[in-house]
């Protein structure tokens, strides 16, 4: 990856298409929207990386910060008109990887790595507390159809735990055969990968793969799109036939097979497409299908949706590091106002990262009593008959 980025990165023309959604209505690059210096756009970032490679600029904390404010939301790759568009994220990750190898990264990123390496999660919370929320949820055993991979946010974050609990209730109600890994679960490594610590990622992925094999896991369902992405696309050595689902895919399949009876709900809901579900894995319809299965639910779209959805700002570990924090132009604050503008009662999310970022933003914008933020399993749970 690194060699490729070094030999290709100069091809960016800094035309700026990367900053927009398809209809050019607004700026869709989270750090550019937040900071507005061209250096924080993808074009700016790529030109600075090239300058750094050529020795025209030296490493600085500011340069590293510019590189690490990218949430790897993939809007740039979606919008760039050039043939190299699919490689842009690899270039960003490649440059980060170089900085990691040289030990020149922002302190918050270094702390993120230390926490994941030492504690198996980015919050520096005890491994032995990973399943403390689970309250007796069955551990995965041979014969279970699915391993529910909860992830770090689902395990340690208050909002993520609520999501995990709702999902478990729904899965139980639908008689899905599943179990969790409990305290044996490790961080999925998606953020570690995106932040450029490829060595650490590989060791984490290998550990997880080994555990999956020992347990005889054939199907994984993830709570978090970040885990879904990395298990599906980046994990080496998984057996052929190993399948990864995001929970919204599973729920969509079950509601389509009429496995569930739901009560009438007169609610207006808008939906935040998570980057790692949508742009990374093209999963746009399933979450909407799951929502629309609820009788009476009206789904209203935000102006920027599906492949044009505006990132909450939490990607690449920013749900912990929050390098884009401060001011009314933070992505989550911009996005929560867009959600509110739809007139929806509920903002539905399918990612614990989005849940955390947008819940905080709703508080800051004084919208917490006007717009409820719930994940899709929670909305379904409340409709179960």
């Amino acid at each position, binding site marked *: 990856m690194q060699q490729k980025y070094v030999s290709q990165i100069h091809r960016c023309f*800094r035309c700026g298409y990367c900053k927009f959604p398809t209809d050019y209505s607004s700026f869709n690059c989270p750090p550019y929207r937040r900071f*507005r210096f*061209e250096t924080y756009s993808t074009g700016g970032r790529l030109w600075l990386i090239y300058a750094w490679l050529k020795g025209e600029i030296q490493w600085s904390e500011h340069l590293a910060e510019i590189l690490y404010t990218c949430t790897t939301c993939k809007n740039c790759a979606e919008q760039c008109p050039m043939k190299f568009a699919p490689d842009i994220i690899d270039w960003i990750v490649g440059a980060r990887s170089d900085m990691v190898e040289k030990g020149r990264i922002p302190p918050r990123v270094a702390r993120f790595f230390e926490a994941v390496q030492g504690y198996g999660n980015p919050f520096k919370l005890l491994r032995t507390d990973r399943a403390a929320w689970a309250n007796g949820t069955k551990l995965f055993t041979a014969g279970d159809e699915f391993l529910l991979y909860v992830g770090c946010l689902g395990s340690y974050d208050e909002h993520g735990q609520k999501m995990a609990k709702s999902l478990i209730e729904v899965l139980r109600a639908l008689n899905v055969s599943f179990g969790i890994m409990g305290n044996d679960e490790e961080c999925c490594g998606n953020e570690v990968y995106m932040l450029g610590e490829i060595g650490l990622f590989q060791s984490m992925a290998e550990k997880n793969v080994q555990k999956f094999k020992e347990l005889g896991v054939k199907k994984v369902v993830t709570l978090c799109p970040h885990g879904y992405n990395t298990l599906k696309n980046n994990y080496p050595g998984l057996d052929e036939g190993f399948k990864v689902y995001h929970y919204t895919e599973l729920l969509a399949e079950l509601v389509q097979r009429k496995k569930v009876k739901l009560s009438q709900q007169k609610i207006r809901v808008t939906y935040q497409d998570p980057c790692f579900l949508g742009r990374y894995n093209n999963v746009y319809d399933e979450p909407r299908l799951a929502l629309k299965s609820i009788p009476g639910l009206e789904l209203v779209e935000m102006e920027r949706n599906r492949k044009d959805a505006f990132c909450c700002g939490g990607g690449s570990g920013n749900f912990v590091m929050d390098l884009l924090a401060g001011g009314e132009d933070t992505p989550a604050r911009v996005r929560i106002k867009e959600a509110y503008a739809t007139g929806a009662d509920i903002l539905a999310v399918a990612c614990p990262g989005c849940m955390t970022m947008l819940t905080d933003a709703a508080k800051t914008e004084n919208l917490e009593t006007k717009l409820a933020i719930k994940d899709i399993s929670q909305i379904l749970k409340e409709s179960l008959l």
Partner: protein
Amino acid sequence: MTTTNTIYEALVKIAGKDCVSTSKEERYFYARDGGLMPAHEPDFVVLPKTTEEVQEVVRLANKEKIPIVPAGAGLALTGLVIPQKGGILLDMKRMDKILEVNEKARYVIVEGGTTQGALKSYLQKHHPHLRHSIPDAPPSATVVANAVIHGQGRLAHQHGFNSDMVSGLEVVLPTGEICRIGSCSVSSYWFSKGAPLPDLSGLFLGWFGTTGIITKLGLKLYPCKKMRDVMVFLADNAELVPEILLKLSHTEMVEDVVISAQPLPLRFRGTFWIMVYLTGDSDEELEFKQKMVWNALWDYFQSRDVGVLSTSPEAKAPLLSMPSKDTTRFADVAKGGGFQYAGPITPIEKFPTFIRKLEEVANKYNVFYGSTTRLIGSGHCMMFSFSFSFNRANPDEMARAKKALDECSKFALEEGAVLWKADMDEQRMLMEKMDPNTLALMKKIKQLLDPNGIMNPGNWEMR
């Protein structure tokens, strides 16, 4: 003595800490564009949000005699917003409000950093029966920048240069006064940049920010028909192209005419793609216009000098897109992220001469080339681009591309063309050739408006 630190603090007081940078990274990026002009760093990069902030920054710069360069997206590619003498670079793109659309007088008022993309999107959503002239530059190009450089876009055949479409200005003068230009100077309506008053917009349009900073701009809007189509004709005899253009223009049915020439893929070499854009509110209207165009070129079909390219809706889609992503993709032909063109404005009779020169120069310097020609006005002139794509990682290729550009510009000037969005070298060539009394008049105007020479120095610098 005023120190850099004092200036920085003063700028922070005006625009806020988050909107002022002296960091190497910002200075590096804003020191260059995607073209071939040498880089030069600003000392400060400032992101103003309001006219008043611009005014305060200008007053500070004028008092301290610091250069100041207003910038859009830097997509002219000819170094027009490279701060040749350092100073303050004002990235105007935070001033991005669309302030008013007057449907009945068909104009819009935008702030100085509003992008072409944002305006297009806004009109489509809120005023779908109105449109503006969209250039082929990427959507991040600003409306003001296109007017300031006398750009051209869709509708150029019917309505001329983007600067012809301006309907009013708000300008911060180099000495700090805020000045309104056109009907908006005496009325709340922004329908005319000049007539029936003396047209003072000429003091700012075409001057590349050397006479003031445009903070608001009124722009004429035009009917947006429900349907749009493109007819593609192929010709291989450059000598016939001027006559073909006149015949197409004579129909008075055409939105836009663009001619594309490129050597690669090989099947395109030696063939000119003549793209004729049409609009209509009904099938009947569109078919009538298509028939008129067809009739205008009938003799060429008979003589087999012009052929018709049958195009599927899928093949037409990129041709119809506004802006055209294909134009930007030219920057990656050499797989190297570089692209610059000389775009002389010239009578259309020069097409055969210019196309021959383009091929000759490209062969001489061994550089990737292409050309796009746009008809401006009813055949009054055209923009002919001598376009060269280069690899930014290959200094030798960049040097050859620059030589090729310089030779084409010199040639075009000798042939009677006027260079468009001229880089500093081309500006020198233009001023050398210009009538001395005209040059003296320009100098007087510049000195009157900008006595301390702070505005985008290096550009239109008259000795």
